[in-house]
């Protein structure tokens, strides 16, 4: 087992309560259950105060990293988020998105390094909205917050990351978004080489992390690399490389702390299977890809469908079975109010052909 104690050299201050929540564009669309779970866990399980402010906006990071949104603009947008937070009486900014987190970190660092840019942002913000802002007292990613409470969550755990049939810890591949700590190693728990933010959760909840050669590698989203179709082959090649590298370790699931990573590691598995016929999971299917909120939710006994796990491209049922999670297969594609939400066509990476098992009438 890896002797990675070096994470202790990279600690960061994480606020204990009263968070101002910045949402993620991708997650709201692809994993809405995860953000909901984060709010529920903080408020209901941990009794913390968190403001989910309807006024706040996208950080425009996708546009920024695609060379569409200029630096001045994104700084102004960031300044506005901070102003909203100040107005709401909060000072601990938590971002649900790794790219947003990277953007906030980068903007704050730029302001510190080049104060004139901060002045300019203040000026722009004031001109555009009449608002003023103070910089946050603390900035954290939501995975930092979950990491911060990992032991409290462990104490409340209904289930552990253990295979109930064998009693063995589940083998988990943790994938950290590039913008978490690769740009500013000090901004991530464990630094950029051996980030501990997800590994800490996995270990605290009974699982076992596997370290594989391409652990550090990017999922391949790469903004322009995915967004421009001509570059997509390069994007998928990155996920392909990671999956090729991690598959021999036979992980039970992958957990990612970045919206894009979770999405691409999940959905590219489908694409690779359809293009090449290669699958990486058990019995010729895919490897489930979870967000850390989903992982925490399962540990805390949340219903997988309430966590939004039916939104995954790769079916999570084998993992749920391993963990001993009770779930209603028939309820998978039913929304909160029991309304049918539609279902994906059956694909190689899926192990539960929906037509036969659920018998849902369209």
């Amino acid at each position, binding site marked *: 087992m890896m002797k990675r104690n070096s994470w202790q050299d990279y600690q960061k201050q994480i606020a204990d309560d009263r968070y101002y929540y910045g949402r993620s564009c991708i997650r709201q669309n692809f994993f809405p259950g995860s953000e909901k779970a984060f709010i529920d866990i903080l408020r209901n399980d941990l009794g913390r105060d968190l403001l989910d402010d309807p006024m706040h906006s996208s950080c425009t990071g996708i546009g920024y990293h695609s060379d569409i949104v200029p630096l001045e603009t994104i700084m102004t947008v960031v300044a506005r988020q901070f102003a909203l937070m100040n107005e709401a009486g909060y000072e601990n900014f938590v971002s649900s998105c790794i790219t947003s987190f990277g953007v906030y970190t980068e903007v704050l660092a730029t302001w510190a390094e080049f104060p004139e840019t901060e002045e300019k942002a203040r000026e722009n913000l004031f001109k555009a909205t009449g608002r003023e802002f103070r910089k946050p007292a603390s900035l954290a990613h939501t995975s930092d917050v979950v990491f911060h409470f990992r032991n409290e969550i462990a104490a409340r755990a209904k289930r552990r990351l253990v295979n109930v049939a064998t009693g063995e810890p589940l083998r988990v591949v943790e994938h950290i978004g590039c913008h978490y700590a690769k740009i500013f190693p000090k901004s991530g728990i464990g630094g950029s080489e051996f980030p501990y933010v997800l590994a800490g959760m996995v270990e605290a909840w009974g699982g076992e992390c596997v370290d594989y050669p391409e652990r550090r590698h990017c999922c391949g989203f790469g903004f322009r690399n995915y967004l421009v179709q001509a570059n997509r*082959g390069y994007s*998928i*090649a990155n996920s392909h490389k990671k999956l090729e590298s991690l598959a021999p370790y036979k992980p039970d699931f992958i957990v990612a702390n970045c919206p894009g990573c979770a999405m691409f590691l999940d959905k590219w598995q489908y694409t690779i299977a*359809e*293009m090449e016929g290669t699958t990486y999971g058990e019995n010729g299917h895919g490897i489930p890809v979870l967000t850390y909120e989903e992982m925490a939710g399962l540990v805390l006994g949340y219903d997988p469908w309430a966590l939004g796990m039916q939104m995954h491209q790769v079916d999570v049922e084998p993992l749920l079975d391993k963990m001993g999670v009770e779930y209603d297969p028939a309820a998978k594609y039913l929304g909160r109010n029991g309304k049918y939400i539609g279902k994906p066509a059956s694909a190689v990476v899926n192990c539960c052909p929906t037509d036969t098992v659920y018998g849902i009438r369209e």
Partner: protein
Amino acid sequence: MAAINFGYTISRPRAIDLDRNNLRKSDEILREMPELQTCIGCGSCTAVCTAGNLTEFNFRKVHTLVRRGEYQGAYEEMNKCMLCGKCRLVCPRGINTRGVVLLIKRKLGDF
């Protein structure tokens, strides 16, 4: 299975993968001509190269790739060489470069 065409393919990795590359021929080449191992990549050979002044042919790069087990296209590249021997006159390590060209072609060609 019928593969779906998504309008793109999975890009092949550019990396030289020494685990996957078959180094047998590279080993044979180095065994026959151990002095090739002493190349320090100065590029003199390529700088004087008669063929290299007319084409993209880069002797240094091609033999380095061959040593790494990247044989794809090396034979065709080496065939651009005119064997004039200028490179041999300038190599600071005294490598028998013309011999290297012939050796690589022999090992990688089908004759």
